[in-house]
């Protein structure tokens, strides 16, 4: 691995000028990406940043982007933790969103296809759906942490089965909850101009950030991610930490699923959260987090999520349909990952030296087992 000597790195950093400090900051690249995408948007639609108030709520492209990005922000936060701790991604989040929405709507409707009043209390439905998604997370966590299965293979199980389970819960139908109270989470609170999903996103970000700031969670997660065997040797239950991050990831996916289903006041098992796992992974990568685990930046992932939502908006504005979006996103993922890769970085640093150890690059999980 072409890791730089830490001492050299420090001395270089101490001697760096102000501009270099800015350039070296870990949020520089994510912010640059966001700025580029926003600039492209402004070039396309000059009134992109214009915000107006109609009927007591905020209107405008930028509000729409921030509003639509809410689920993605919530997912990206969970994904960041799971990635940092386990060095792999949870690709089942989209399917877990569908399960959560299905559970919630099915309890609210009491088995009917379309209802105009709650059959069961909202609190019960929401907590059941969050519990179900946390359970999905626990299942993933068990496979990853206890049985030491590669995260993406372990979550592949729910990735495929999840939507099937959601279909079974809703009996293959799209359950509609035509109650205004249910639409609140995906809409507006009367008298407040800001869309409610934004509050969910901010709330999640603040709570997780506080947890990281005032508990040892960040230290544990990073220790488990950097070197789980070493973390275990210093007395840290790496497996438990990884397990907890997957439960959190599942729980947050459930929350995102609830918001998404509230937006369309229904549980559409086939479409809720479709392709969102890709966006969430992309957000984490765009945020400057290494997908192989270790140190992470929550703010980076949130910025990444907004970048992707702006990108989607741009692409939609260019008349690219939803089915075609993955092409561009996949290209973006490959570009970012290539820039992040050790081999590429080593090549940039010193193209002449043939990197002998780099001839095989071990992914971290492979070397551990």
């Amino acid at each position: 691995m072409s890791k730089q000597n830490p001492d050299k790195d420090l001395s270089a950093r101490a001697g760096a000028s102000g501009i270099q400090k800015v350039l070296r900051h870990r949020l520089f690249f994510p912010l640059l990406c966001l700025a580029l995408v926003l600039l492209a948007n402004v070039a396309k639609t000059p009134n992109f940043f214009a915000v107006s108030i109609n009927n007591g709520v905020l209107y405008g492209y930028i509000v729409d982007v921030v509003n639509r990005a809410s689920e993605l922000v919530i997912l990206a936060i969970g994904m960041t933790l799971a990635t940092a701790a386990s060095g792999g991604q949870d690709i089942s989040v989209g399917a877990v969103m569908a399960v959560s929405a299905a559970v919630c709507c099915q309890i609210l409707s009491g088995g009917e296809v379309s209802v105009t009043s709650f059959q069961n209390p909202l609190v019960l439905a929401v907590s059941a759906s969050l519990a179900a998604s946390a359970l999905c997370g626990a299942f993933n966590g068990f496979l990853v942490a206890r049985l030491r299965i590669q995260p993406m293979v372990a979550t592949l199980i729910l990735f495929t089965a999840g939507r099937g389970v959601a279909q079974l819960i809703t009996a293959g139908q799209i359950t509609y909850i035509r109650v205004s109270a249910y639409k609140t989470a995906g809409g507006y609170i009367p008298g407040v101009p800001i869309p409610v999903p934004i509050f969910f996103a901010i709330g999640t970000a603040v709570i997780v950030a506080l947890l990281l700031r005032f508990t040892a969670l960040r230290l544990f997660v990073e220790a488990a991610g950097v070197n789980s065997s070493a973390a275990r040797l210093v007395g840290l239950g790496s497996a438990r930490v990884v397990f907890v991050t997957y439960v959190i990831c599942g729980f947050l996916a459930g929350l995102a699923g609830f918001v998404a289903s509230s937006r369309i006041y229904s549980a559409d098992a086939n479409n809720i959260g479709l392709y969102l796992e890709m966006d969430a992974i992309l957000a984490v990568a765009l945020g400057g987090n290494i997908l192989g685990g270790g140190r992470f930046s929550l703010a980076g992932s949130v910025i990444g999520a907004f970048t992707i939502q702006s990108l989607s908006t741009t692409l939609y504005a260019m008349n690219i349909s939803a089915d075609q979006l993955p092409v561009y996103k996949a290209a973006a993922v490959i570009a970012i990952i290539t820039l992040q890769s050790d081999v590429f970085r080593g090549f940039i640093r010193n193209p002449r030296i043939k990197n002998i150890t780099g001839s095989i690059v071990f992914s971290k999980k492979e070397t551990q087992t």
Partner: protein
Amino acid sequence: MRIIPLQRKNLSDTTFLLLVTIGLFAAMYAAGMIIFTNQGFAKPQMFLNLFITNASLIVISCGLTVVMITGGIDISVGSVTALVCMVAAYMMEKQGASVYAAVSVSLGIGLAFGLAQGFLVSYLGIQPFIVTLAGMFFGRGMTAVISKEMISIKNEVFLAWANYKIDLPFGTTNKKGVFQHAYIYPTVIAALVILILVIILLKRTKFGRALYAIGGNQQSALMMGLNVRRTRFFAYVLSGFLAGLGGFLFCLNSAAGFVEQARGLEMDAVSSSVIGGTLLSGGVGNPIGTLFGVLIKGTISSLITTQGSLSSWWVRIALSALLCFFIVLQSVITSRKRKTKSGSSGP
């Protein structure tokens, strides 16, 4: 390539996994024969239908097995299949291209995916899952870029290929007492030929042995003087190529191209390999096991379709449950191996 004579096998755990798979298949099929006797489950044609419907999956899973033996994974295969079907359909129907041109473009697409993904994985050292996840989304998106509408193939040569029945010397007599030959399509023969070629490649060639060595322990393989990067690269190229070929076989079966085609096929292929005894951590795998994995998948779907009242979602759920069971089984076996430190991993 030089053929290496087969050495005495020492496969305690791997044979165990393979036997579990074969036993499971036999049990499931027998159960189907007993429960659905009057729906023709016991007819030989029913068994052959497993091969007919899953010919493409056999080819694709073989490619995936090769990649998984090196410890990698390729989940782009389903999208490659969809893209190949769409491109073939588009070329033949909208541009009047010949079947041969469609075949070569199909194989070219698979090869291109394999080359690109192989390069990113082995030469840039990016996690295979991320690379092929991107490939999966790219392929699916490109399918939509080519055409959002379904294109059915009406090319005469193509349909002649697709509907060319090969009668077998055995069969059943129907209710009217007329003898009916059991039949297969050319796709089945293609799939079986590929299966045999992959078995020979894995078990009897230098390249194949290198794949196992790398999957078992990359570092030791490097120290032994194997070219780890190039071998892994060619594993992905092979997988991509077989995905392209499998995609064309799939196309022969469906005779159409549309965006949602072959969704989840990557999952079927991965689970077939895993159920067939390929270890996710690499170093262990057998195409024969993979074949039985595919047959188990086929049996589950035909059991559920014959049963009639269960929704098609159950196929995926049952398959996921089986996959989960086998992953756990593997995990137990590998952790036991780690504890005893027997070190004799791999066939």
